[in-house]
């Protein structure tokens, strides 16, 4: 055969060339595959068209509504004291809840009260279901930046729960979410199960039973 008469170094060269071109071919085929994949991935899904436009929480002509906000107190025998503030009585329940929570995040105006929620915490979502349970989602800084302490954690949790349930009688329980997810405890102490209002740790008397005054 002609090939067997080829010098040895040429034969080795031929083998190396064949193997090399086979690898190159493989790579080339894969490159085609990758290009195809890139084309496939380029489907127009870059922006979510369903993101709602930011709606205002209240209208200019909404009437004012006085609310009691609960903040940690320096008084010895109570955990939370209240502070009067005003929000707009907007039509949507969640809008009123959002305004209350935003005031809570902004902190107290009274010097004898302390902020209840760690700085830089953002309110992400509020949702109230048919049974009167409010789901309130905060950014994860509410847990991560919490200074700790059982009493101060109880104060954080109940300043949120009490401020909502006391001012909005439609809400009966509050379930706090952290960073969009359920968490066992806020910072190692207080359970984040659906919680009812607890006025026994405050200096505020229960509201008179005016059924659905709002």
């Amino acid at each position, binding site marked *: 055969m002609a090939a067997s008469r080829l010098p040895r170094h040429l034969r080795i060269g031929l083998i190396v060339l064949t193997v090399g071109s086979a690898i190159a071919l493989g790579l080339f085929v894969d490159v085609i595959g990758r290009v195809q994949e890139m084309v496939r991935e380029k489907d127009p899904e870059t922006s979510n068209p369903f993101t709602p436009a930011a709606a205002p929480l209240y209208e200019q002509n909404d009437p004012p509504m006085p609310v009691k906000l609960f903040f*940690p107190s*320096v008084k*010895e*025998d109570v*955990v939370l004291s209240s502070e009067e503030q005003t929000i707009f009585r907007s039509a949507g329940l969640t809008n009123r809840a959002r305004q209350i929570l935003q005031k809570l995040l902004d902190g107290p105006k009274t010097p004898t009260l*302390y*902020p209840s929620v760690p700085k830089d915490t953002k309110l992400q979502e509020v949702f109230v279901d048919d049974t009167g349970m409010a789901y309130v989602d905060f950014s994860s800084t509410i847990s991560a930046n919490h*200074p*700790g*302490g*059982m*009493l*101060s954690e*109880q104060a954080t*949790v109940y300043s949120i729960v009490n401020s909502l349930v006391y001012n909005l009688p439609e809400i*009966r*329980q509050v379930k706090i979410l952290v960073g969009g997810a359920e968490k*066992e*405890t806020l*910072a*190692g*102490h*207080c*359970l984040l*199960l*659906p*919680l*009812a*209002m*607890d006025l*026994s*740790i405050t200096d505020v008397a229960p509201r008179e039973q005016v059924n659905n005054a709002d």
Partner: protein
Amino acid sequence: MRRIVTGVVLAILATAILLFYSRPLSAADTDFLIYFENSTLALKSQTIDRTVYLPLQDIVRHLGLASTDATGSLTFTIQGQNSRLVLTPGSGFISYNDQPILLQNPIRREGNQWLVPLDFLSQGLSRVAGLEFRYRPGSRRMFAGRVATTELAMNAQSLGALTRLTLRAGSPIDVELQKETAQRRAVIVLKAKAIDPARERLEYKDALIQSVAFDDADGMPRLVIAIADDVRDVRLTSSDGNRVYFVDFVREIATEAGPTTAVASAPPPAASRPNPNVTASSGVRVIVIDAGHGGIEPGAANGSTLEKDLTLALARRLRSAVQSRLSSTVVLTRDSDVAMTSEERVAVANNNQAGLLISLHTGFSPDKMAAGSSIYIMKPDFTGGVPEPAGGRLFLPWYMAYRLNAPASKAMAEHLQRNLTQATPGSKFPIRHGPIGVLASATMPAIAIEVGNLNNEESVKTLTDPEFQTKFTTSIAAAIEQFATGGRK
């Protein structure tokens, strides 16, 4: 050149042949048990395509069912009282009274042997034999008909000088401990007919225990525990009317334990050295102390002073303070710097059948001048009077477990308040109620103590002072003693 090529080819062929023939050998046979009401059948199972197969003829013979193995028509027929089951090899379809039933895996025939997958027993054979077959996936046993099974759960935990294996049976059973020190193992023979273990082996290993495995291959259910060289003694204690057993693997021989082979009624395990002044505690056999936070979760902090370190130091001091007063076993939820969820902490107390759970925390108040200390018990109905479903509740959610012991928890909190205010004059320990994670699912009296205020430099100095730590934990231990001896019977 040719010789080398031939050699290589031959070597590859030899390896291929070796691999091919060694495969079925390694895949074959572990013994499989079927527990019937009055008998037990041991079978040689085969694993083919990751499916466990059982020899059909052995089962049919044991059940005394009539069968015909028609070699010509390649079918196997089982005759029941008014029913007939026909099997065809290589097919997942079986015919029951001429109605097809599809199995997940095909019937196999190897030589003269008919092999059936496990679901054949529950889908097909159960109809002809009139027996129900129960199987826990991953196990090597089945339970047929009305055989009375005893469920068995086990867990292990290191308690420092000893490792405790807790066995929990669904109904009372007798057990016998056999110490095979020469083989470095202990065998616990379970004297019940059909044991249904939740797991075949315990994924647990520490300095004293190497492995824990359930074994009933010869029809005699037992636990085989491989132990380390350090283990000097194994002790067995029963509890809860022989439903719960504690097996303690001890590093050194305790004075009261003799060189027995079968200890059926050993004295209650005590982790402490026998103390002549110890008062026997009647109500509380195990006390669990929880050091709050840990690992990546430091809790409150003041500079380099972290809550997790303080609580661990206090927990260790409290352990020795309690052990010097009571004969109870004291268990820490964590004895090192590890993170745990509240649920895991309570599980330590629940699994050890503890009579008391105490969780230690330090305080932090935004108000630098605040005292910070409190005693916490669970706030009743913190979710706010959820209406009970009509006809009552069948199950309680775990977070309501605290309800059973609410009065006892309150009594313990009062003992504590009295002792702590006496020991540290000027400081108050108000009893507060809150939805505390570590207390909610406790099935025993449970309280949490929050001490000091890490936002206050003076308080930090006090909390890190060993003298204060001793004084503080001693008065907690005194409260525990009052509670254990008189507060609750």
